[in-house]
């Protein structure tokens, strides 16, 4: 049994690789064309076929017209079902695929946006990362839908999600039509925040900090994308008038402590633990509203704060060494 499963696994892997070579790399958005749609009977479909063969044998043996008519009707039914299953995917578009960065050890979502330019309601479209569990969704005629695929990130780093599978067994579960999509999707996995060391003390020297950080009271920190709940007064309307996206001016209060974070400061036995300690510090500093800088071998990020800065710092940790 296990051997059969292994064999099936291997065949599936081989087929996927064959499809990758055949299809070449993909770019989003893409619309599923005939050339890349594959279809095979499901296990239920194979059983249905066996049932039809038995019925055919009985009908032929007894030269029973009605039994034959029923068999042929069901045979035609299966063939039409195959076409319908194929059509359920044909012309479907994958518009976007993006995943927010996440910490190692947590689960996040890969958000897929699917679009259907068709008069059909597309039902039971199943999307999955490679061979993981699928998520199903229905797409209204001419509409779009979103699916959130749960993804787990066991290790920090820059992970490539290199294969998506879009499939459907609608309408009768006798056939499964599917395609593989090989679009480059990078998933940034931050190190898991951990480590018990306290944040490095405020470095009064402020050496190597952001030059403007010494400016007067509400110092201007930069622009960041608008988020729900932001005050309209903070919106950078001038930038918006120049057709830029809606941005918000960020200010910080003067006199925030400055934390200088570096690999050396995180005194941990191994490099991964150090990165995890740094991640924890970054999270804590950001939460405390502190200014923080990050120094890694060959890389230096000026002291700053805000979500962009946090992402920049954590990403640097994520990609460290790669």
């Amino acid at each position, binding site marked *: 049994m296990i051997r059969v499963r292994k064999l099936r696994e291997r065949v599936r892997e081989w087929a996927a690789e064959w499809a990758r070579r055949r299809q070449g790399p993909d770019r989003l958005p893409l619309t599923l064309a005939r050339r890349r749609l594959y279809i095979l009977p499901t296990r239920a479909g194979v059983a249905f076929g066996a049932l039809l063969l038995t019925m055919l044998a009985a009908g032929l043996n007894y030269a029973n*017209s*009605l039994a*034959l008519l029923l068999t*042929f009707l069901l045979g*035609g*039914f299966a063939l*039409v079902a195959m076409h319908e299953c194929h059509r359920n995917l044909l012309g479907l578009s994958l518009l976007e695929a993006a995943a927010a960065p996440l910490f190692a050890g947590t689960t996040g979502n890969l958000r897929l946006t699917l679009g259907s330019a068709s008069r059909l309601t597309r039902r039971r479209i199943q999307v999955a990362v490679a061979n993981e569990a699928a998520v199903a969704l*229905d797409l209204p005629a001419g509409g779009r839908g979103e699916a959130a695929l749960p993804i787990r990130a066991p290790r920090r780093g820059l992970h490539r999600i290199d294969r998506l599978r879009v499939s459907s067994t609608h*309408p009768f579960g006798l056939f499964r039509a599917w395609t593989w999509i090989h679009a480059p999707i990078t998933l940034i996995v931050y190190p898991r925040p951990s480590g018990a060391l306290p944040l490095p003390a405020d470095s009064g020297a402020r050496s190597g900090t952001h030059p403007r950080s010494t400016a007067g009271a509400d110092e201007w920190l930069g622009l960041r994308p608008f988020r729900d709940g932001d005050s309209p007064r903070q919106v950078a309307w001038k930038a918006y008038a120049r057709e830029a996206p809606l941005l918000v001016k960020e200010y910080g209060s003067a006199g925030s402590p400055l934390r200088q974070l570096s690999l050396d400061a995180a005194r941990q036995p191994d490099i991964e633990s150090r990165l995890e300690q740094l991640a924890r510090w970054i999270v804590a500093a950001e939460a405390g509203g502190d200014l923080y800088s990050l120094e890694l071998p060959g890389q230096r990020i000026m002291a700053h704060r805000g979500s962009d800065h946090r992402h920049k710092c954590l990403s640097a940790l994520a990609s460290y060494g790669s």
Partner: protein
Amino acid sequence: MSAGALKVTPRSPLLWVCAVSAAAILLHAAQVYAWITIAGLVLVGWRLAAAFGRARLPGGTVRIGLGLSLVAAVFAQFRTLNGLAPGTAMLMLMVTIKLLETRTRRDQYIVIGGALFLLLAACLDRQALAWVPLYGTDALLCCSALAVVAYAGDEALPVPPGLGTREIVGLAGRTLLYAAPLAILLFLFFPRLPGHLWAFTPGDDAMTGLGDTLTPGGITRLTASYAIAFRVRFDGRPPPPAERYWRGPVMHEFDGATWSAGRYSPGEIQRLNCLSAPYRYRVYLEPTFHAWWLALDTVMASPAPDVRYTDDYQLIATQPVSQSQTYDARSCAHPQSLAPLSSAARLADTQLPPGRNPRTRALALQLRHRAGSDVGFIRAVLTFLRTNGFSYSLTPPPLGPEPIDDFLFDTRTGFCGHYASAFVDVMRAGGVPARVVTGYLGGQLNPYDGTFVVRQSDAHAWAEVWLDGSGWTRVDPTAVVAPERIDHGILDLLPNAVSASARIVHAWPWLNATLQRWDALNGWWNERVVGFNYRAQLNLLGDLGFHSPELRDAAYAFGVALLAWLAWISWQLGREGSLRPRPDRLGRAYARLCRKLSRIGLPRPPHQGPLAYAQSITRHRPDLAPQLGPLLESYADLRFGPTSAPTPDHDLRKFERSVAQLSVRRLQPR
């Protein structure tokens, strides 16, 4: 809450699967023992109750015990598990036991598969036209259940809301509808088998029609049935009612109570000298599961190579009639045997069990002694039957251990079986070779398709005696007692003999007429659809121009048809999902106009509106301007103008007409 508003919920697949099982059971309710139907429905009810939390599902041990005891019950009932009827019963119970343990999608698929197989069993069992709508509905139900189960998906996937019941049934129905042309093509062209792959033995229940034995009183079960035995279409003049004797099994051996075919050494078939023009006709025989093929008395040759023509003029096939048969035959109403009766045949047909029915024997000897000849003897016996208070009844009193004596001297009430038995017994006792012939008498003309319908209620038995000089001669002693039986069906004679419904039909002419139409439709169905077999398929291929009909030709014809169907399905399904909405009437008319113009080299660029198009046409083909200018303007008016026009429909039709009448030519190069 309307039906369309019902949505697929986590419970829906189970409900659908229960419905499918219940439908499959009810499909067989009239054919199987009542306890099987009830057991099946109880199990379905149990599963439903469990689905709603009203009952607990049985554990594995209980299920296995239940399964085994039901198998044992079926075996006890049928004494076998082999054959269509016990197999169907088994399948019914297995499907419902499977239903009891249905939890996953796989289980649900298995139950639906079982239900489809039960539908097949019903098709094998009954092919009457009246069942077809039910079969169709059941197929639709099964396919819808497939869709529901597939849609609800695995436990791993949440059920997306939204698919309504109406949509599901619509989906399954449309898919079946698209499949129908293929089903018809396959039906016509899929190579049929000339014989059987494996043999087929029906249960006793399936046997209808005449048996191979005759006990005085035994035909009652048949005469109560209004079912059709066979239909006949005469080529030319049909025989008068008095000649509509349909010959079936012939009985030679009598043990004092029961007649049977007996061991009658097949002699040489004696050529018949026909004293009148033979009748030519085609018989559509319903399945009887007996080997006899019915034919008008006396048939002159075998209608098919695998049907034996015996020396007592029976047609006996090598296989029981398990499917309806169509055959052409020729019969002679007034035959004459040329050769003398062989001594073996004379011996066999004057045999009587020693010591049985002594009073009859005494009567026969007395009558034979008084009569001068065999013919005189026959006349005397018939006179005896006519003058001694004999009466015709389908519910005669039971007969004792010497049935012929009891009948002739005590009860004196009976029907054809009694009279024929008694008459042949008397003849043999008097030394005249005689035999009992069973078959049918009568037949009702269906004016809608010109066939004679012979029903089981027309079953009859008569006698044949050997007369030197003229050979085997039919004598119907029943006719002496009840002469009306010849001219009328049994219904006129004994209205109480058959079921109440048959009496009602007989009493109301309009109902009778409706039924005759229905019979005619059934006749078409049985002949063209049910009876479409290997031979009919070869004929069809011959008609289509395949002059040497072989399987290869069927395969070619089928391949071409399959490709055509596949193309049609692709196109049809593609059209449904097409991106572009179908334009309205005005848009279609405008598109027709643009196509016409593009054919003469004036295509409309996609960016051009109607008025700009008119201008560009005027530039290229000034000669067309007076025609096309107003036309394109009227399109612009209809499409973009104010909608307050008093008769927009009138204008639209006018536009359509102008487009249709427009005739433009390409400019000839000079």
